[in-house]
């Protein structure tokens, strides 16, 4: 089994991008942290032939839900972000319209889009996470992308 450090180095960036797409740039940090702490705890029991990235996305899916729930219980106005975040919170500022566009998608579409287009998960596995069928997961991703193309037109010119 590889040292967990290798797992963080190899998959940390993708998991952060997935978290940012699913819960937005502010909550993504907590979702990422919770994901890798949970993963580290469970790592010794991971079967040797497991798809590590799919496993991480599964954990991120659950942890993102937790972070989302905590956030809805205690809403935090955006201007009270701690300095640590504000110091380089550029992704949030640079792409506010992108976050808005993603945030307006129905949750399952946003998740399907992130898990398929960023993490590269097959729709069979996404369906398991979303509790729907592979066809429904595929449709959710397609609908999500179609909506994003309309609401975030920069996509076509980039």
């Amino acid at each position, binding site marked *: 089994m590889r*040292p967990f450090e290798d797992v963080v180095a190899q998959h940390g960036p993708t998991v952060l991008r997935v978290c940012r797409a699913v819960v937005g740039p502010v909550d993504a940090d907590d979702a990422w942290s919770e994901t890798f702490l949970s993963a*580290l705890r469970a*790592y010794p029991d991971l079967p040797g032939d497991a798809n590590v990235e799919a496993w991480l996305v599964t954990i991120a899916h659950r942890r993102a839900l937790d972070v989302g729930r905590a956030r809805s219980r205690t809403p935090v106005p955006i201007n009270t972000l701690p300095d640590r975040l504000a110091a380089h919170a550029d992704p949030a500022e640079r792409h506010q319209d992108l976050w808005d566009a993603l945030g307006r998608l129905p949750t399952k579409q946003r998740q399907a889009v992130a898990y398929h287009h960023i993490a590269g998960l097959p729709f069979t596995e996404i369906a398991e996470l979303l509790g729907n069928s592979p066809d429904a997961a595929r449709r959710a991703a397609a609908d999500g992308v179609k909506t994003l193309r309309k609401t975030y037109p920069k996509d076509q010119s980039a």
Partner: protein
Amino acid sequence: MSTNIFDEIEADAARLADLHRRLETAADDAGVLDIAYRRVDTPVGALLLAATTVGLVRVAYDVEDHTAVLARLADTVSPRILHAPARLDDAARQIEEYFAKRRTTFELPVDLRLSAGFRRSVIEHLRDIGYGHRESYATVAAAIGSPRAVRAVGTACAHNPLPVVIPCHRVVRSDGSTGQYVGGPAAKSTLLDLEAA
């Protein structure tokens, strides 16, 4: 299908480094950081330092291949391994002081789980060879009650999990030549010269 929008969702290196540091602290606090490691630059090259919650468990020379050493730790101790310098701050500082000739003994908790049986007896004895002193392989063999196991003492020294900190470099040949060393003969001479100066 080109969906450039996803390229704009970045994972910048600065934020990832930040998150890594958060993970190191959270993992240690939660008791799931089984092995923390870091590197320290010395006159004998970059040394890898690794510690369990018990203490320093491994010091490795560059020539041992740090990646391979970490992979073996993952197999033999635990794969819950992170680059987490904080746990090694004390060890790194004492090693730097040693090479700056400001320290002659290490005061560090050690975890000798990688060494067992006869080799463990040798390693335990090495800890008693003082700074600037030398012992022959034969003397060490006699000291641990196996006077004929001279060659095995050499093997035990070659498998010292904590070179530099546990001074296997102070064990030399009976004819006075320095002999083999896990970090290479040049590193052994450097350490002996440092302590003799």
